[in-house]
């Protein structure tokens, strides 16, 4: 798989990106989304629980296609030189990288437009889901945000 990975996104991987030589790229931007140690208030329980890790699940085949189409679209829409996207699947601990997007471009304005476009589209369109594992061992699916127009009603 080109974009999804169940292996840790390591500093070595990021170094490899940093080592890329591109004399025409005046701007290099990298975004990493990490698992946050969010506090979770459970009604009924006295203490506070925290997110310990997140399990990411994807509809792999569709997710790879969607990310590919977003990257291709961004390459045409913005004048950028290279786009790199990695999204974790499987178990990701607090502080670990779950999502990475990097953009090389001649100038920074296109780079920032492209990278924000890509991140927003992926979060909205790519079939990936988060299951939070809490410090008390409980698990809960993160409520998703994007709904198509007519989700599950009986269609006309």
């Amino acid at each position, binding site marked *: 798989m080109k974009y999804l990975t169940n292996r840790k996104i390591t500093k070595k991987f990021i170094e490899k990106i940093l080592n890329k030589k591109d004399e025409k790229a005046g701007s290099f931007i990298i975004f990493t*989304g990490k698992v946050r140690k969010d506090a979770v208030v459970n009604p009924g329980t006295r203490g506070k629980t925290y997110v310990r890790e997140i399990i*990411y*699940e*994807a*509809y792999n*085949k*569709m*997710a790879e*296609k969607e990310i590919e189409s977003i990257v291709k679209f961004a390459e045409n829409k913005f004048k950028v030189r290279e786009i790199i996207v990695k*999204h974790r699947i499987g178990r990701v601990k607090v502080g670990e990288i779950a*999502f990475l997007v990097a953009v090389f471009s001649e100038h920074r304005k296109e780079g920032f437009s492209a990278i924000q476009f890509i*991140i927003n589209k*992926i*979060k*909205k*369109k*790519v*079939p*990936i*889901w*988060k*299951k939070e594992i809490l410090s008390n061992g409980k698990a809960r*699916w*993160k*409520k*998703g*945000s*994007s*709904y*198509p*127009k*007519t*989700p*599950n009603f*009986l*269609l*006309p």
Partner: protein
Amino acid sequence: MRILFFGKLKEITGKREIKTNNYRTLNELKNFLFEKYLDLKKETFFIAVNQKIVDKNVKLKDNDEIALLPPISGG
């Protein structure tokens, strides 16, 4: 055709996937699923046929791959 379940829906149906060829349209399939897994009715999800989101009562063919997808929470 293959019916795939993801996220919370997989926990409701207890299955990642079922195989069936008895349903010719999306609505027929949905009626079957709602009857078989009552809790599905309470859930909001969208449907992809061969990795494309559909929101019409499309015809289904034998080798189609249909996926029930909860709202996305990736990234």
